């Protein structure tokens, strides 16, 4: 799939998400009691803003759909694929790496919240996993990754706990 079509799909998914959030907020705001001492009350602004978001999302979705249709027409089997920059190596996007980092972050926060392992041990482990993943699990980068993660991870937790007095989990 071409980047424009991919972008259009991401856009559509986002507009759908924002619309769903707006609808939820609109109906949740309707349950708020009306104020007796002021004209506007708590519910009016959230309702106005959620309606505006819905309208904008609808307009943008229509545009994204048109873009997607155009992209699909260009993607038709008979259409030749244009080379955007002849001679230049194609830029590879590493979504897998970003997803890994995200999973590690979720696990890091989850474990911190459960308070199973203290932050001074979790932080170096989290850093090591992230660094080594970004270095594509190369064996020769294992030691430097572990060293940097150990020093910075442990050091940061100690600095946060003993200098800034942040009560890390």
């Amino acid at each position: 799939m071409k980047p424009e079509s991919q972008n259009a799909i991401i856009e559509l998914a986002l507009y759908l998400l924002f619309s769903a959030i707006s609808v939820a907020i609109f109906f949740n705001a309707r349950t708020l009691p009306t104020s007796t001492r002021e004209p506007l009350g708590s519910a009016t602004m959230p309702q106005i803003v959620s309606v505006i978001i819905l309208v904008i999302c609808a307009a943008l979705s229509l545009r994204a759909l048109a873009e997607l249709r155009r992209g699909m027409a260009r993607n038709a089997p008979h259409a030749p694929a244009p080379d955007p920059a002849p001679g230049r190596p194609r830029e590879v996007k590493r979504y897998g790496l970003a997803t890994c980092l995200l999973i590690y972050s979720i696990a890091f926060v989850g474990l911190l919240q459960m308070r199973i392992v203290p932050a001074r041990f979790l932080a170096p482990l989290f850093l090591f996993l992230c660094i080594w993943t970004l270095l594509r699990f190369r064996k020769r980068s294992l030691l430097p990754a572990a060293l940097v993660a150990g020093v910075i991870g442990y050091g940061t937790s100690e600095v946060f706990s003993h200098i800034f007095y942040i009560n890390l989990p």
Partner: protein
Amino acid sequence: MDVFFSSALHIVTPIPFMWCVLGVALGIVVGAIPGLSGAMLITMTVPLTFFMGDFHDALILLVSMYVGSVSGGLISATLLRMPGTPAAVMTTLDGYPMARSGQAGRALGLGIMASFAGGLVSWLFLVILSPMLAIWATKFGPWEYFAMVAMALVLIASVSSGSMLKGLLAGFLGIIASMPGVDESTGRLRLTFGFDEWSNGLTLLPVLLGIFVISQVLKYVVDIDAKSEAISASTKNMLMSLKDWKDQAVNIIRSSLIGTWVGILPGIGASIGSICAYSVARNVSKTPEKFGTGFEDGIIASETANNATVGGALVPLVTMGIPGSVIDAILISALLMHNLQPGPLLFVTEPEIPYTIIATHLIANVVMVVLMLVSVKWIARLVQVPTAYLMPVILMFCIVGSFSMQNREFDMWVAIVFGVLGFAMERARIPLAPFVIGFILGDLAESTLRSGLMASAGSIEPLFTRPISGTFLVITALLLVWSIVTEIRITRQLSAR
């Protein structure tokens, strides 16, 4: 002015001066590293300022970082053809070709001196305009503030990259994200969906860390394989001669004025100022064809203007509590977190605060020019720090930093969720700046509208009949019409293809 001098004298005492130098140095380094930005650095530093004894020192550090980060972008723009910050994007057009032709030192020198000149001119506006505007702004009532917030949102949405509708969407999403929690007017909980953690609402810092920092980390990791051709920095011919100053005087003054004016407009950042000044310089030039080929006028216009926006953007911040740029929005959040209400009354209740900002802007510019001239060669080496080591450290700081504000685990989740949201929004070309401005100003917009309506017994008429709010509304309407017309034209062009 006594308060200004006492603030300036305070900054040149050893400890505050150390914070100033540290802030500028960190700002330059972060500004120079592509993928990192001043907004990221300042957002990550805000939680640490709670542990600094004196809030004035924290302000000195944050404002110095601001000045340094806008200036540092020129190093990577010139040597790598990758703007370290969006503000330096126009510098790449002439800086890199000039460096490639063996004049890296000259290109960097011009950029540094132009940055200094732009900073100085905008500081003059800051110091002259701020007290006057603050006195004027004390006449503002709720209607004026509401109209101004509306203008700021429309303004930032209309100049955001991509379409205006997307900018508006981001702004309104920011407003709605600021609404859950305790409604200050009634004291009741609203939009919490039954979650206890939401009763305090979404805290500003985790949202900022997520939207600005985690999203950028993810973006940078996705593009980790992007290659750049580096040129080594030389320090030859870095200083501008008297003839250079004479030749460039008009360009410098014009670009400074453009940068300052663009900075003063609420919500618009350094990149727009730089683009405007560069375009004007090319349009009025006798040799416009030389722009983009390593032309000195291009570097001067871009760098003068982007640094001038810093002083300009600080004007609405110190006088009205309205952010002139994204970094100003973060500075406002820092003031709010330290229980200081930014706005005109700050000049009366805590005059040291606005004058510390004003004095720091001047001194940080001087420190910036000295640091850049002395250490540009070494900073250029730091630019190529391996991403694989840097990004995880930043990510960890964000997670821990978001926890530190209130010691709530919930805030770490907020940072991650908003990080993913920011990343997705960027992919969908929805600008992030209006989101943050909406998030910060949403509360102000609602509270002023509600107070105004209470004072006028439910009538919205004063919004249109009061001269200042009426003027703001007319400007807002004009901006909206202009943006909608542009939007329709773009849509027609797209569908005609």
